[in-house]
């Protein structure tokens, strides 16, 4: 069954590419440009997820959030905003937001979060992750490729697990940093590149088929080439 997403975003171009990207990822998207229409749509139809921009004409995102929550406690709401202070985040989590994404964002990150909110299992609960001939056992925290064991440090393991959970999807450096380290490392260090290089050395170098891919300007992804 196709998931239906309501996108409330007044910035036309943002709305267009988010809609385009989500449609490409096989979601059904209704895009509206202002708060009152958004509230109406949210009341009229059953959505699986609402993506809400905070700066809207006529009615602020906070008011829209409250109105929707008054009639619908269930639907997950993902906030998109250009305001990133902690006070802002706390305020909107308190009135019922489920997640918060600051602009500018990598579309991949939006997709990851959308999937998480839709409980489609972006963070796979499977105890063994597989990409091509690479296997990751999450219980024993061990990696194997083509039956050969690969020794990983704790950080390398965390990085590989994050990549493999999102296999086939491009993860931005910011996403990786926030997931594997913390945001203090963002914007300054090339720590991600160094760790990816180490990981490649262990995972890809001895083999002909390379699984870890660099997407220039965006980030990294792991995939079995044939599956794309």
């Amino acid at each position, binding site marked *: 069954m196709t998931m239906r997403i309501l996108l409330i975003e007044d910035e036309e171009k*943002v709305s267009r590419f988010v809609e385009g990207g989500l449609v490409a990822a096989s979601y059904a998207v209704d895009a509206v440009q202002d708060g009152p229409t958004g509230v109406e749509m949210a009341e009229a139809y059953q959505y699986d997820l609402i993506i809400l921009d905070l700066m809207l004409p006529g009615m602020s995102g906070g008011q829209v959030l409250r109105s929707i929550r008054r009639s619908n406690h269930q639907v997950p709401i993902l906030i998109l905003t250009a305001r990133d202070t902690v006070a802002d985040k706390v305020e909107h989590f308190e009135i019922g937001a489920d997640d918060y994404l600051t602009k500018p964002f990598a579309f991949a990150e939006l997709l990851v979060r959308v999937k998480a909110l839709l409980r489609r299992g972006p963070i796979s609960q499977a105890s063994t992750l597989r990409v091509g001939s690479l296997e990751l056992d999450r219980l024993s925290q061990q990696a194997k490729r083509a039956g050969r064991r690969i020794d990983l440090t704790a950080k390398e393991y965390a990085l590989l697990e994050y990549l493999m959970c999102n296999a086939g999807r491009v993860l931005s450096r910011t996403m990786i940093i926030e997931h594997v*380290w913390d945001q*203090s490392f963002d*914007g*300054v*260090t090339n*720590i991600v590149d160094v760790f990816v290089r180490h990981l490649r050395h262990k995972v890809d170098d001895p083999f002909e088929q390379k699984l870890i891919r660099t997407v220039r300007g*965006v980030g990294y992804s792991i995939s079995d080439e044939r599956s794309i």
Partner: protein
Amino acid sequence: MNPRSIRVRLSLWYSGVLGLLLVTFSVATYLGLERYLTSVLRQSVISQAREVVPLFSHLDNKDEQREIVELRAHYAPEANNRFLRVRRDTGSVIYVSGVPKDQSFDPAEIPSTQPPLAQESTQDVFLSGGTRLLLYAIPFETRDGRRLIIEAGATYAQVDNVTSNVWMIFAFSLPVFMVVAVAGGYALSRRALRPIDEITRRAEQITSQNLSERLPAPKTNDEVERLSVALNRMIERLERAFESIHRFSADASHELRTPLTILRGELELVAQRRDLSPAISETISSALEEIDRLTKITESLLVISRLDAGESGHESQEFNLAELARVTTEQMTLLASEKEIELCCDTPVSAQIHGNPLRIKQVLVNLLDNAIKYTPKKGKINVAVAVANGCVTLEVADDGPGINPAALPHIFERFYRVDKARTRKFGGVGLGLSIAKSICVAHGGEIKVESAEGQGSRFSVHLPAAVQPLSFSKTSRRAG
């Protein structure tokens, strides 16, 4: 008690002026009184002498004895402690009063005066024993042509008596007045200045976090009220300025981020297409990299502008900087080992500070990242934390090439690059040290650098140690 405080200076000035006035008043009163009493004494002596003149002026020689008897009976100068003498101008004495009742002088001691005819004279006569006598002489001619001189005198004892009493009164009361006046003045000025103390205390409590608060401005219609009102207006202007910085920061966030979001999103969508020629694909990737860099610059500038506007207080908590330094150093070890750099960490067990741990960590990450970038292969970097005198110091020292002395004063400036080509190669945006500095300042600390070319660089961050963890954590807002 601070000797330079207005209260003390006011009291000192006021008592100085008061003291001067009191002394002037006392001296003037004393002198005036003495003068007045002397003139009264003189008038009394003169009138006594003049009263006696008619007794003798119309008499003949032979009546003298009768007048003398009358003089003794009626005037009795001795009883009033007065002196009276009637002489002929030849020198022979017709009458002289006896020793006065208070025995203040001996009449025999008093010298004769010899004024010319019809010319009265007054003079002060000093007798043995220090007695001072006012002596008045009036020569006249009797009806039968004899020349007589009448001399009347009185000691200054009465005048001296009164003046010395007055002197005593002044001498005792003046210091008492002064003490009362100084104490009263001090208390009064304390009372008058108490609202100022209150204003000072409240003003100290107003920071960038609570600029909406105002000072108390009691409607007293005096200088204190005017001061409060003026200060409140100033705080209001400050508040507006801060608000406009915050608003600018929020507006700029939105205005800069929205186009970046669109650029990025649209290009990412295009980049996913599989029918792109390698040239277009390359161009899009390059554009995405630049968008990424622009995003980092924007984020960094917004962070700096928010820090400079005093944002830091919100996510504050007490934490162990030593622990944070150990963990961060550990996390950066791999970056250092890429260049075979030895990364050491030397910390005490605990170094509690109060602040936003993510921000402080950002400072350390920035410093370490810089150090790793600029230290050549097989170099050494040392991270140290020390606690001394209520101050926690975090140090990052390397044995790299050091910093050019000409560049040293500018390295914390925004977008300053020591070596433009190199920094670009490393992918920095020239804001790492500016952010570090803004974070330190927002935490009530400072960041310093020492460096000599060829001898490495040493960055040190000084932050106030957490002193009252309990009261701090009570007032701090919830961390997000």
